């Protein structure tokens, strides 16, 4: 066994230069599987390197022999009839055995790695319940009683142990820079995945199993942060919504059509206090985590309407609108069909990684989510739109967006 381990170490030592090359290559390839940032990802990578090297060797030998044969044995005008060989038992046994040996070299570490990576996660791991929905991700931290969506925070150096369930069809949970994927198959019987992130950063996650119309729009972000930052994030997420809807002063004129009063002082204060240190700093987001999804051609929202948005009015609208049927805001609404919005303003994207989370996109999203994201289950809220569930004018929508943005 020790001899075997030594052999294994030698192989891995030999792979190190390639590993370094792989790391160098990931500049410009933010979602590459190479140079993974967790022990599980690196274990999987090591096997991939072994396979690439052996595969590359076979490729060079076979294609080399083929090209050599094509050049050397091309027909020449004065050729004689070639020797009519019908086979060669020794040769044929040899080239049956050589692949068998190569495959054994692959099979042994493969099987060992299967058992290593599918062992139970270490005690004291951070538990994360992942629930796949068409087409967004729900993340729950049962140890901290936090529910959020489409953005994962993980502390560096602590094993994150995922329990994967689906609410509807099969999805697949994949963060290429952190670990291999795991399908999200059942509603009750979960799948498991664990890994320990070892460097801080922002990573892209994808749904890797075709799950219907917006499969391509089922992305998520993972922020690996220091344990201190993680603790701060947890504390922040455990508090109630940043804009206490119950405390907001009712605005008597919101019900009047066309009434567009100036934003209330409370709202201005909330918008100004945009100094949330618990979440990943937006100005440090790498470019590949900032969505560049173009707006649908026939979608627009008036900038001046957004300028007049009032979160206090938005809070009132939210409480009485269809929103509460699907979305939870702690202390405000109990809906569980859509993402939990208690701290929606603290997220960097909306629509499962599809658009930046700003007033411009949020207003359009509320107005007509289906135009923004094909197949979205959330019905349009804008007045007069087909299949609309709400009948809000643009100002009301801007107010709602301002309210949600304020929920840092």
């Amino acid at each position, binding site marked *: 066994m020790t001899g075997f381990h030594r052999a294994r170490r030698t192989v891995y030592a030999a792979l190190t230069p390639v590993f370094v090359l792989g790391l160098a290559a990931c500049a410009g390839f933010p*979602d590459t599987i190479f140079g993974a940032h967790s022990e599980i990802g690196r274990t999987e990578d090591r096997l991939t390197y072994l396979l690439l090297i052996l595969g590359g060797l076979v490729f060079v030998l076979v294609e080399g022999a083929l090209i050599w044969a094509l050049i050397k044995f091309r027909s020449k005008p004065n050729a004689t*009839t070639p020797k009519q060989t019908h086979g060669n038992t020794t040769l044929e046994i040899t080239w049956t055995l050589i692949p068998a040996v190569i495959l054994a070299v692959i099979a042994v570490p493969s*099987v060992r790695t299967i*058992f290593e990576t599918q062992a139970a996660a270490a005690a004291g791991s951070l538990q994360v319940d992942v629930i796949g929905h068409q087409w967004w991700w729900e993340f729950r931290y049962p140890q901290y009683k936090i529910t959020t969506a489409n953005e994962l925070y993980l502390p560096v150096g602590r094993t994150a142990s995922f329990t994967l369930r689906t609410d509807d069809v099969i999805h697949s949970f994949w963060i290429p820079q952190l670990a291999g994927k795991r399908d999200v198959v059942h509603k009750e019987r979960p799948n498991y995945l664990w890994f320990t992130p070892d460097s801080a950063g922002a990573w892209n996650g994808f749904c890797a199993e075709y799950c219907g119309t917006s499969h391509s729009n089922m992305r998520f972000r993972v922020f690996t942060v220091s344990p201190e930052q993680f603790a701060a994030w947890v504390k922040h997420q455990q508090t109630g919504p940043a804009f206490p809807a119950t405390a907001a002063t009712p605005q008597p004129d919101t019900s009047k059509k066309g009434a567009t009063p100036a934003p209330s002082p409370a709202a201005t204060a909330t918008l100004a206090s945009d100094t949330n240190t618990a979440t990943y700093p937006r100005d440090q987001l790498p470019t*590949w985590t900032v969505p560049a999804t173009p707006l649908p051609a026939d979608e627009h929202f008036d900038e001046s309407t957004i300028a007049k948005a009032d979160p206090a009015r938005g809070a009132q609208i939210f409480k009485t609108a269809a929103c509460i049927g699907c979305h939870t805001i702690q202390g405000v609404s109990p809906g569980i069909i859509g993402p939990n919005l208690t701290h929606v303003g603290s997220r960097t994207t909306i629509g499962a990684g599809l658009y930046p989370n700003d007033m411009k996109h949020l207003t359009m999203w509320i107005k007509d989510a289906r135009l923004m994201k094909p197949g979205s289950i959330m019905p349009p809220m804008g007045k007069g739109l087909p299949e609309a569930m709400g009948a809000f004018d643009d100002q009301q929508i801007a107010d709602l967006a301002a309210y949600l943005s304020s929920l840092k």
Partner: protein
Amino acid sequence: MATTVAAPSVTGKAHKYESGIWSWLATTDHKRIGQLYMYTAIAWFVIGGIEALFIRSQLYGPNGRLVSADTYNQLFTMHGTTMIFMAIMPLSAAFFNLLIPLQIGARDVAFPRLNAFSYWVFLAGSVFMNVSWLIHAAPDGGWFAYAPLNTRQFNPGVNMDFWVIGLQILGLSSLAAGFNFVTTIINMRAPGMHFMRMPVFTWAAFVTQFLIILAFPIITVAVTFLLFDRFFGTNFYEIAAGADPLLWQHLFWLFGHPEVYILILPAFGLVSEVLPTFSRKPLFGYPVMVYSLILIAFLGFGVWAHHMFAVGMGPVADSIFSVTTMLIAIPTGVKIFNWLGTMWGGNLSFKTPMLFGIGLVGLFTIGGISGVMHSSPPSDLMQTDSYFIVAHFHYVLFGGSMMGLFAGVYYYFPKMTGRMMSEPLGKWHFWLTFIGMNLAFFPMHFAGLNGMPRRIWSYDANQGWDFDNHLSTYGAFIIAFATAIFLYNFLRSRGHGALAGNNPWDAPTIEWSMPSPPPDYNYAKIPTVTSRYPMWPQQGPTPLSPPVPTAGGDQPLPTYQTAEQLGIHMPTPTIKPLLATMGLTLAFVGLIWHRQIPIILLGGAIFIVSLYAWVLTPLEPEH
């Protein structure tokens, strides 16, 4: 209509089927049916290719908006379904039909009318599924149609109804043909045609038929469950009623992996015919080539769950399926090495069929190597459902199956039509296809390793995938251009190609002993076979491949004595298999079109009456 069908056919009536459109509708001649398969398969190959061009144009750059997400999902579903079930399988079936009776020295297949039925059912199934495009409701659940996305709950439209029923119809065609060819090969070999003298293509076809016979019932069951779920409210895949979505995956891949070999083995067989002819040497290690075919087919039933390493089967199942998958690489590798051994020491002449044959050896190897990479589950978790897989199976199916089938088309076109395809155009076709396919599919390896998931309608900017996708799109259009050259060459050469003569390539197997195109009765006298390569002298063929014929493009094909003149009894043409197919299809149309019970009953009645009329009609004219 039904009463007309039931009327007993009069013997003399056969004359009206001798020429024109009726001669095709009523044919039971395996060579004509083979040509029908070939034309239809090439047409679907073009349509599947157009779908691919839409896909590639949509993915050319980030955030593409050429087609909508729903249309894109229909496009990739139908591209896969079309290429697998309507292009590659029927193109293989074209060669089964054209070649098996010729290669074993028979006059026709065992059940000529069942053979016609297989073709018509295939045509009906493929048209049925594609009619969905006309109402913009093409199947959109992927060619693998995973549960529960394929159920009414998550796919309420008619899209997957078309897929379910279309696949059911197509499966009937394959099964009927499978039993037919197995019977033919076992029972109708000419005197002296021992199993170990059979041409390797016929061997590959033989093994493939067993795969079809054993694998298609599984998908038939899986699809029947789904059909019952969707139409009659059963709960095989309804998760709301407690169904396990993995049932579908196991059933589908238990069919789906043998299906991979159904797609590749016929191409292996064709290349095993082409390489010896143009190397001027017999196939290296014939027995091992045959055993490896059988071994691949056998092991092919024990590896299905390697498509499911990410679903959470647990470490034991993952390990077992990993090792069985690695095992299958051994007989596959042996085939590659034996093809190299065939060329080694030969006098290689690079005619178009040979170029495509070499293309298979070189390109399938790449797909084989990446295949071994997926066999290691921990590594596969990084690869599966990414573009790396898309690269892998296009090397296998385009670099392997299509290259082999193109080799077969160029090689057997002279036997099929009596005329040669243009060599210069053939070489243009090969080189553009070779460049285009590598440009299209090799960068997909990098896109996949750099994290690009499969089946995505659109991807964001700044992911590092743009360049790979640009290249893939250019490659796809080069393949399209190459295919246009092929189509021109194929269609024009039918009437204007140089006269081929019996054996333009100086090939070794017995089908080359008969005139091109063969008369409807094939061999005027059934040959007696004494060796594997009866057309080559004992000491070996002439050192060099003969020059490709270039003369006689303006001359008519030679004519032969008819079967009557020679006193040979051939099956009478009949349109009853076509009528039976129409009845069957009508019943399914009634099912999908608002479940019209009267239409379903009418279709069923036509089907049953046609079957009775078919069975009661004598196979050969009374005399």
